[in-house]
């Protein structure tokens, strides 16, 4: 009956989303009067999960799962759910978890709601609130199946500690060769930089920066804040920055704690992609820029003067508060 979460990890360590998902699962389990079981793949020390409300851990150790393969991982999650008699499976919204979640839902004959924000509104009938229409509205979805799969929107719940310890046991699901129809040949990851997906803060630049040679402004500010750098669509279309930095509707979605937009006017397509960030700051010399309508804090002025000063002041602030 226990709730099952897949606690995602990378390079032998849990991702932050795993702790957010565990915190969320703990609350959902309380309202259903049950416990939380976490599934982990190739992690030796899983004790950390206990701190966030996990009661039991199913540890899978298998060399076949060394690299991420959606079908194989989905298969493992399905077998874990069946073993536990799970009625609610919770998954996060990383690229990998989104990839596998619909496979899990089909395998379990489960109704699936993705992009869920907040705790279930009711458990009978089972109703959740989810982001829809590119963050311009919420949609309340009722899941009527016996087994339910929820995808929790990134950074939508928060991480909460609770006193507890997780009991770990080994779990050996059967993994067939037909799970590996898609083979990973090579992985390219930007190293030494915070990725947009993992960042708590994103500093983003637009056409107002006038050219790629001025990107030092964005990079320096990002460095002080430990932030990822991003850009608007015109900037990536012009080739000033790589496509991987393009955020917005057709680029990467951003749901950070703090989003700082420098020289970005705030076209509706851009806003659609970043609007689920919690706090938005805009720096723009045009007071009529649409971004001011959606921002929490704004400065009207010349980015070339403001950003270096802000960077220096933040450096001093960080030195004082670290």
């Amino acid at each position, binding site marked *: 009956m226990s709730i099952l979460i897949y606690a995602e990890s990378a390079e032998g360590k849990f991702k932050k989303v795993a702790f957010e998902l565990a915190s969320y699962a703990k609350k959902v389990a309380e309202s259903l009067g049950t416990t939380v079981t976490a599934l982990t793949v190739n992690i030796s020390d899983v004790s950390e999960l206990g701190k966030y409300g996990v009661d039991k851990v199913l540890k899978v150790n298998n060399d076949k799962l060394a690299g991420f393969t959606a079908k194989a991982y989905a298969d493992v999650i399905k077998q874990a759910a069946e073993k536990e008699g799970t009625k609610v499976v919770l998954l996060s919204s990383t*690229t990998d978890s*989104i*990839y596998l*979640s*619909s*496979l899990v*839902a089909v395998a379990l004959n489960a*109704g*699936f*709601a*993705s*992009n869920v924000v907040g705790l279930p509104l009711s458990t009978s009938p089972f*109703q959740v*609130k989810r*982001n*829809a*229409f*590119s963050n311009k*509205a*919420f*949609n309340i979805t*009722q*899941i*009527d199946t016996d087994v339910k799969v929820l995808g929790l929107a990134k950074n939508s719940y928060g991480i909460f500690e609770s006193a507890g310890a997780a009991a770990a046991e080994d779990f050996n699901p059967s993994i067939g060769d*037909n799970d590996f*129809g*898609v*083979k*990973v*040949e090579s992985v*390219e*990851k*930007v190293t030494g930089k915070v*990725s947009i*997906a*993992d960042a*708590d*803060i994103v500093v983003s630049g637009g056409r107002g920066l006038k050219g790629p040679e001025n990107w030092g402004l964005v990079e320096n500010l990002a460095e002080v804040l430990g932030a990822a750098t991003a850009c608007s*669509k015109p900037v990536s*279309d012009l080739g000033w920055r790589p496509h*991987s930095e393009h955020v917005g*509707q*057709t680029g990467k979605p951003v749901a950070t704690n703090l989003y700082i937009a420098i020289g970005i006017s705030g076209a*509706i397509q851009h806003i659609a992609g970043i609007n689920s960030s*919690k*706090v938005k*700051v805009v720096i723009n010399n045009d007071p009529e820029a649409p971004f001011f*309508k*959606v*921002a*929490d*804090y*704004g*400065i*009207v*002025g010349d980015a070339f003067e*403001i950003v270096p000063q*802000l960077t220096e002041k*933040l450096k001093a*602030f960080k030195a004082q508060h670290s």
Partner: protein
Amino acid sequence: MKILVCISHVPDTTSKINFSNGDSEFDTNGVQYVINPNDEFGLTRAIWFQEQQGATVTVVNVGGPDTEPTLRKALAIGANEAIRVNANPTDGFFVAKQLAEVIKNGGYDLVIAGKESLDYNGGMVPGMIAGILGSNFLNSCTSVTVDGNNVKAVREIDGGKETVSTTLPLIIGGQKGLVEEKDLRIPNMRGIMTARTKALTILEPVDAPVNTKAVKFEKPAPKSAVKLVSADNLDELINLLHNEAKVI
């Protein structure tokens, strides 16, 4: 190679999002519909396969007769034929079930669907099709090439990308990168004229369970006005971010 491109008929990004009937339905009044952007990248890549490798391209949508202009637009862009499954797309699984049926009966080698639609943002249909059919599946796909039965493709991952190899039949959840924005095509007059004579087949839906339903919609609470900070007082911004917003 037979390619099927799954098309969602979605409100244009600039549309006002409103709800009617006690906030239980999307208000279509005055809404402009377009091909879902993630699907349009896939469609344009499919047309490339048609022109370069002799593939045939079929587009499909699950929806009522009001979605046909969107399918006609896809035909005008260059798809060979269109299919409309005549049903209200109630939830992701229902749609996936209909599409899986079309794929089974049509013997498609490559199926491209957008990784997510702009309206419900479910992001589940391509994966569910693959789950139902047991086919190879690649999500967040930014590049795909086909040589005989062999496929090389690139998937976006958090913080980078990975290159994969797989084989047909394959289901793809596509996005920007399959083609770039500049490669997207605006239908020309000849395309629009020939689209009128291309086949648009209407199929009746197969039975599928109702797993989930959208019971209500809500709009976010109105945002409070932006707090403007003077460019001469950046300490105030840092103070606000630290003490009020608590994000630094």
